[in-house]
């Protein structure tokens, strides 16, 4: 390793970047756009679900039922319609997600201790949404029934009956249950992949395509120096992006890292190194920018988005995909991010994930080195 030669390569790559200033802009603009989009616009939380009622009973009890449901933060009663037909129309035109039909003898049946059917229709075209709403509404009616049971027992002369069990539910790690709190840190993993792997996937292929690889080969530059020199400028861009993401998350959205900042920087650097060596490897293997580009999307961006526990829970995937996620670096980094951001975990907990990243990095670097050696560098 010769520092002078290394410096020359870094300078060359740096000039490439500066002269191609649009790529550089985008390397900072894409993280910004992602953070702002995810922070402001995108949420996976389901609350205030538009609900319309058709109340055929129009009794004291039916009005109470509607009021109780509306009081829950999960539902928002957006209309009271005279006919089921009208309500279905709401559903068809996407103006409501739930239709609840209260039958005409609702109060009479309940008072007469008879079970009464209530028609509830959920728009499940988005199954994620449909599933959550079904869970909410089931929980709501069960709770409602429990109250009816208690009042029934009280009426039977058994005063002061209490519910046997009271579940005191406490939410850990993401106390206010905001999807933002886990998505924004997760974006850091995506950003690093876009900047680290996708951008670098082109930079050795470019040399081959332009024929400048021959020039480099004829120079005294060694394989290690070339790799390091190509990676270092992108390493700094990547790390700056991480800092921007951390800062914006905190300033704009109040997402505070519970764990140690330096541990975060250390693991981000490690993951960034994996991303860079992955990008360079793709570049080395394909030697064509178009190919590299396609493969980079397929092997870096999409898996970090889909197979990393970022928004799609790995535990819900079929077994073969769960196995596949073991080879996705982002999976380990998202694990670390969740540990540092939400769980306040230290190195004692996070080292296994970091170790895997380290192994990935070493392997990829070894492959890169060998490929370039074979080319005669």
């Amino acid at each position, binding site marked *: 390793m010769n520092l002078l030669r290394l410096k020359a390569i870094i300078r060359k790559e740096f000039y490439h970047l500066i002269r191609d200033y649009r790529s550089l802009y985008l390397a900072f603009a894409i993280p910004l756009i992602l953070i702002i989009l995810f922070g402001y616009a995108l949420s996976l939380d389901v609350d205030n679900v538009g609900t319309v009622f058709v109340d055929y009973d129009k009794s004291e009890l039916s009005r109470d039922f509607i009021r109780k449901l509306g009081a829950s933060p999960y539902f928002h009663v957006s209309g009271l319609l005279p006919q089921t037909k009208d309500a279905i129309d709401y559903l068809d035109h996407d103006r409501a997600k739930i239709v609840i039909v209260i039958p005409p003898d609702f109060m009479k049946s309940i008072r007469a201790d008879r079970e009464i059917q209530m028609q509830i229709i959920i728009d499940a075209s988005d199954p994620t949404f449909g599933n959550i709403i079904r869970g909410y509404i089931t929980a709501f009616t069960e709770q409602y029934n429990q109250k009816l049971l208690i009042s029934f027992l009280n009426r039977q002369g058994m005063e002061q009956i209490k519910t046997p069990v009271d579940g005191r539910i406490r939410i850990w790690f993401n106390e206010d249950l905001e999807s933002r709190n886990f998505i924004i840190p997760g974006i850091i993993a995506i950003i690093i992949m876009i900047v680290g792997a996708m951008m670098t996937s082109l930079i050795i292929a470019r040399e081959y395509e332009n024929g400048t690889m021959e020039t480099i080969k004829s120079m005294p530059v060694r394989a290690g120096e070339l790799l390091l020199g190509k990676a270092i400028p992108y390493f700094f861009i990547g790390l700056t992006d991480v800092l921007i993401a951390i800062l914006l998350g905190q300033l704009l959205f109040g997402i505070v890292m519970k764990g140690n900042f330096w541990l975060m920087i250390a693991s981000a650097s490690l993951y960034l190194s994996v991303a860079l060596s992955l990008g360079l490897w793709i570049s080395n293997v394909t030697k064509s920018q178009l190919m590299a580009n396609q493969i980079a999307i397929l092997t870096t961006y999409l898996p970090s988005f889909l197979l990393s526990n970022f928004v*799609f829970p790995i535990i819900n995937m079929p077994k073969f995909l769960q196995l596949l996620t073991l080879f996705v670096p982002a999976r380990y980094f998202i694990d670390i991010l969740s540990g540092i951001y939400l769980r306040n975990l230290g190195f004692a907990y996070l080292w296994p994930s970091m170790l895997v990243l380290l192994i990935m990095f070493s392997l990829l670097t070894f492959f890169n080195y060998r490929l370039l050696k074979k080319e005669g560098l």
Partner: protein
Amino acid sequence: MSWLRIRELVRKEFIQLFSDKRNRVMMVIFPFIQMLIFGYVVNYDISNIRVAVLDDSKTYESRKLTDSFAGSKIFHITNNVADERQLTELLLREKVDMGIKIGHDFASVIRRGDTAPIQILVDGSMSNMASMRVAYTASVLDKFNREELRELYPMNMSYGKVDARIRTWYNPNLNSQYFFVPAIVAVLVMITSFILTSIAVIREKEDGTMEQLIVTPLKSYEFIIGKTIPYIILSLGQMAAVIVIAIYWFEIPLVGSVPLLFLATCLFLLSTLGIGLFISTISATQQQAMMTSFFFILPFFMLSGFVFPIANMPVVVQWLTYLNPLRFFLVILRVIFLKGVGFDVLWPQYLVLTILGTIVFTGAISRFKKRLD
């Protein structure tokens, strides 16, 4: 306009695309892999909540409570722990999603007719999953309570209650694949047409062959047509391939009309090819083009209702989604696939796609021509 010149350019483009064997393989494998992964990844069906139980009571009652969790298909009791430290540890290490802590006086309090509190710790890090866990927990507890009351007060229990008949419309089995697989078709078409078109033009610039093309008698609009036709064909081919996978592999019923589907794709391609051309006018290198494509693809993707429901977005952003052709294409795809309704219902979507496509495409062409002339 000379069709001969266009044809030759198209031929050149195809030769360039397919001369590289790896490229050929890529064109086929790329959509396949994406389709398969996407198709299986997106699954929010809750069926596997891992629960750790700390039972200090160890009584008939406490066991009945844990059994009622284990008995529901959704919860799985994976760990029985002896102390609180272990419980915390399991939650911290993401080994379980939920912890239940039953105090030592649990049974005696219930037998006394009082309310026994139990502590339920839920990992909230993925908030949407956590909300479902909370809702299901509440259901299990309510059911347990009712049974317990019935046991404590043995008497006629036919009390008036609500029997919720919940029906899930449009996707009765709540099958995630029904919703996501048709949408993947759109995303694949988008990525291909965006990136390949822009790179096809840039490559000429980078290789210096653009100068050669300019000195040929090729007119600028012929150049544009010749450059876009291969990618229209390629996108439509990919589209057909992934639709076949959707139908035969994922067994998504294609209820509606196939020609309407392809019409929508062509209209959608107007926008994406237009943007691809636009990107090629503002980029000088392939790296730039790729990054710029991503700059467009990300918001298109996120603000389309593909994964993130539009109804959840702030109103201003919801308005913004009306500018997103992918949003309308997704509606068309999902509706044609699943509901099978025709043009009479979908015409507004087609209209918007046409308008957006025409604006984007003519805008891009006029900019592109200025660059060429």
